[in-house]
């Protein structure tokens, strides 16, 4: 078995004595070397699913089966940078001393557009710059699996597009498996090879897209049709 397999996965939270079910029996195959996008409305359990798959929380029922040994990196909704470390220190945070190659770190800093801010501390950066540092930290780790929880939500349009292109480039060059959570249908269509719609704690629909690493033109008829289908699935009024 390659990738990650979720079998009848359940998770609930207890708030003031009341049990609130979040995931109620998710069955999902997250394939290797592909970008799987989890799409759904706010509060549908996307982040919980990601946290369970990433091993940050334990499920209340069901099981998770991992394939080959994985080197996982996580990009959270918020940057989660170490305030006492500068940009370079934060990017190298997950690396062992012998894994740090200055040239490569400079290249990653350039990629995320933080040239000149190598010695800046998180408190000196804007929200978008902090998030880019968090993305750079994940890329520098050379993960075989990247878990991303709405990582580009805090970025402006141009930076978001640049980061989406960069993510596709990383996927093409490293063939990393990516589990990407978003509530943006366009982002899901741009990046995903597999789009999974979650609703009421279960997988409602899965869409398979061609495994192309290039930036897609969302104005193509097939993507417009697919977007319409996704919108209908999400029960969003058009």
């Amino acid at each position: 078995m390659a990738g990650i397999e979720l079998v009848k996965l359940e998770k609930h939270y207890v708030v003031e004595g009341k049990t609130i079910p979040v995931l109620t029996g998710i069955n999902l195959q997250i394939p290797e070397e592909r970008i799987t996008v989890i799409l759904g409305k706010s509060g549908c359990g996307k982040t919980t699913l990601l946290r369970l798959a990433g091993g940050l929380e334990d499920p209340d029922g069901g099981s998770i089966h991992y394939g080959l040994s994985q080197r996982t990196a996580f990009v959270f909704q918020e940057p989660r940078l170490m305030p006492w470390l500068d940009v370079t220190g934060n990017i190298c945070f997950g690396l062992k001393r012998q894994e740090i190659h200055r040239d490569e770190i400079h290249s990653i800093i350039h990629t995320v557009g933080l040239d000149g801010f190598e010695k800046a501390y998180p408190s000196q950066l804007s929200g978008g710059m902090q998030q880019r540092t968090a993305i750079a930290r994940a890329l520098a780790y050379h993960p075989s699996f990247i878990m991303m929880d709405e990582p580009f939500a805090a970025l402006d349009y141009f930076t978001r597009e640049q980061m989406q292109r960069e993510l596709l480039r990383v996927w093409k060059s490293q063939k990393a498996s990516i589990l990407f959570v978003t509530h943006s249908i366009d982002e899901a269509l741009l990046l995903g090879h597999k789009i999974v719609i979650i609703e009421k704690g279960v997988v409602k629909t899965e869409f398979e897209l061609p495994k192309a690493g290039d930036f897609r033109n969302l104005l193509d008829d097939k993507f417009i049709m697919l977007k319409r289908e996704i919108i209908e699935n999400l029960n969003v009024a058009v």
Partner: protein
Amino acid sequence: MGIFSTYVLPSPGKVWGSFQKMLLSGEVFRDIMISMGRVFKGFAIAFVLAFLLGMIRAMIPASGVFYEYLVQFFRNVPPLSLIPLLILWCGIGETTKTVIIVLASFFPMYLNIVKGFTGCDRKLLEVGKVFGYSRLKQFVKITLPYASADILVGMRIGLGYSWRAIIGAEMVAASSGLGHMILFAQQMSRTDKVIVGILVIGLIGYGTDRIFGWAIKKLLKGSCENGWN
């Protein structure tokens, strides 16, 4: 001006003159060095104890049950009230003074260290978990730096408490040091020397506090201003 008796309040000139004489004779340096030696010895022991107990409390939360009540009990007992017992048990040697300083400076450091360690942002700890950090590595790379502001503030308060305690201890159970010098000068009706002693203690306290302020500023360069610089 003759408003106050020189016995009650000696003139600045007389105080300055006494200070110069004490400087030239080296008497004041001897007392400063003795008091400083005691303070730093007691302070260092208290810091190591506070750090270790705070670390155990943070890494094994259940361990707090075993000693937290004892810590809270002794936190409310003024160290100077223990002097009679300590003299009985340890005599008027160095041990008594060291124990008094340890008791005085331990609690502010312990409370700040525990606050720093246990208050570490869980979201940052999750970052360590994602990168596969062991509990020890997580402590060294995340919890410890995160708590450094609280640790340094605790050390700063603890050092101030150490100076207060040593002067009290030396006034009762010593034959040397700044506390003893002040008490001896009072018994000899040398109010000028008493004032010199008070000023010297204040200056040393201010000096060490500034050094800590500088260290905090250097070590917490990435964090926001904490109002202690």
